[in-house]
């Protein structure tokens, strides 16, 4: 199964590079399927250390499914459905954030306003 493959790769990575690795796997309906290592206390300890990091530190080397697939474009019919879904969500989310950014900008003074980089989009009017 793919789960076992992923857990096996996590084991190899932790052993070869002498590092700590943990994997948390939830199913579609939100049930916790399995963790690696099996001992949840180790996973919990590492998760707590991760949570205590500052937000900036956490963001540094973080990646997610959409960012990962950017570098590895998989042209496949099943994946293309996910791609369309992701694209729609991106467009709506981007629109919401742009509106919010426009609302926040008038609060800045003139000097900082001039330093804001221009975003190439027809909706922005300076």
């Amino acid at each position: 199964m793919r789960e076992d493959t992923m857990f096996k790769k996590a084991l190899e990575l932790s052993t070869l590079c002498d590092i700590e690795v943990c994997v948390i796997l939830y199913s579609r309906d939100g049930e916790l399927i399995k963790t690696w290592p099996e001992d949840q206390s180790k996973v919990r300890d590492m998760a707590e250390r991760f949570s205590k990091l500052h937000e900036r530190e956490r963001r540094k080397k973080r990646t997610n499914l959409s960012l990962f697939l950017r570098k590895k474009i998989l042209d496949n019919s099943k994946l293309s459905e996910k791609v369309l879904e992701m694209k729609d969500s991106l467009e709506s989310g981007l629109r919401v954030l742009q509106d919010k950014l426009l609302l926040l900008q008038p609060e800045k003074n003139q000097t900082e306003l001039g330093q804001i980089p221009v975003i190439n989009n027809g909706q922005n009017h300076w």
Partner: protein
Amino acid sequence: MGGVKRKIAIEKIQNKNPRAVSFSKRRKGLYSKASELCLLSDAEIAIIATPVSSNSNAAFYSFGHSSVDNVVAAFLANQRPCDERFWWEDESLLKSENLEELREAMDSMSTMLRDLKELEKQRDHQTQTLIHQPCSARVCIQDYVTVNFDGFNTEEQTLAVSDNSNNNGLLGNLDECNEDFDDLDQIFDTVTNSEFLSVNLEMDDVTVNSEGNTEEQTLAVSDNSNNNGLLGNLDECNEDFDDLDQIIEYLTSSEALSMNLKMDDV
């Protein structure tokens, strides 16, 4: 037989640089397997790894879907992850008034949106390229129409079989058909394919009618038994073409057809 892949022992790599290289490569492999699992079974996964360097201030490497923070927070609280689908739908992001964070998120989202649009362009370009190959596709459909056209008699159906040059042309066209079959697995839109077939059928009706001149009729000089065998193979090819799932059978028929053509040369 081919060479056997070398398997290394799963133990700590002593040298610093090879260990770092191995970490980088295997981490990507692990992320790849996790991404497959996320897409195929819609699971939510978080992977956290400590850095190779002993610097305690270094940041964790992490991969997550829908997001690492979401899955980790759910795990620590012994709860189910939230229903949010993507990281940019996070409530804290929507409520945040930090301009820097908002701009960073917007830049990332814009980049992803551009990449997705390029991906769709690539797929459309591939489909267009396949549609604009009239020669090979016309050959297959034309044979199909010829066999079913009532106005043709047996003598006219054997026009292009006896001449060696025509045989060579047919072989070339079949090669192009085979190339098309290798690419057909990339066609996503069945409706586009159906419309494409309809258009070509209309065009080929004209083509078939124009072939009924006297000059070509004089070429019908050949052995009837060989011609009948060749026509039989063509019928099999046409049947295979209607059902794309039988590509393997089509290749077998193509090989038989090639052998028949070689025999005709003798």
